[in-house]
């Protein structure tokens, strides 16, 4: 399945403009508005053992009818496994399914995700210290697309990676 050149590219421009369409979990959505996301930051200190962090609980979440398009930046002597949760489709998981780890060397354009509302594509991170104690600073930045579900099937629509294509 092609992702239409959406990922693995620089620099970071909005992926969707108003009146464009996207398919998530077998539903089609029309983009109503595109705006920058207010950056989100998380700092964890004194990490002495592997720790699981639900990024939604830490505030990295979209509102209803919003699609969040984030790039993540890792700082600190840790390895981080990102897992896409609440997806459940055939391409669910992305890095999580492949059990790939990211760290400070990983460029943000390789850690890019979409989160739809509070139920689709929310992120979960497993943090493993490289030195003990370790610390982590995670920064997320990107765009918010206000979306509206459409009943008609649009002729052209995007199918992103790392979020469910079917429900």
């Amino acid at each position, binding site marked *: 399945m092609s992702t239409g050149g959406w990922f693995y590219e*620089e620099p*970071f421009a909005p992926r969707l403009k108003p009146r464009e369409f996207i398919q998530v979990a077998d539903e089609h959505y029309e983009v109503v508005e595109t705006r920058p996301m207010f950056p989100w930051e998380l*700092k964890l200190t004194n990490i002495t053992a592997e720790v699981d962090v639900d990024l939604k609980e830490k505030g990295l979440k979209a509102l209803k009818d919003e699609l969040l398009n984030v790039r993540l930046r890792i*700082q*600190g*002597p840790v390895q981080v496994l990102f897992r896409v949760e609440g997806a459940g489709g055939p391409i669910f998981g992305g890095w999580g399914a492949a059990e790939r780890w990211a760290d400070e060397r990983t*460029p943000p354009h390789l850690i890019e995700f979409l989160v739809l509302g509070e139920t689709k594509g929310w992120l979960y991170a497993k943090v493993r210290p490289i030195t003990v*104690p370790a610390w982590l*600073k995670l*920064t997320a930045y990107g765009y918010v697309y206000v979306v509206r579900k459409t009943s008609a099937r649009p002729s052209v629509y995007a199918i992103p990676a790392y979020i469910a294509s079917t429900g």
Partner: protein
Amino acid sequence: MLARGDLRVGVKVSGSARFTGTAESDLFSVPGAYVAYLRRLQITNESTASAIVTLRFYNGATGKDVLTISVAAGATVVLAEDELPTEGCPTRITVESTQQPYTVSYSVELE
């Protein structure tokens, strides 16, 4: 490793402090969600004996010695770039010296 247009430039902060004791003292407290990267450090030993100055990075409540340097009596040492620790400090930076008084000036970049 960051792309053009990504967040990559930190907030520059500088300061200077004179210490009249040898015990461990706070040099810089890292605010909020920032992480501090030390970019420049200048140490002046104002005593009449050679001093061993230790720089410590705190991660929560745990401190780690990241730099130990000898400064001759009355001398000034300037460290920059490759001579400084490359790891960031998430909580606070402290200094300790075997002699006093001494003055430490620093520049940090908050990311």
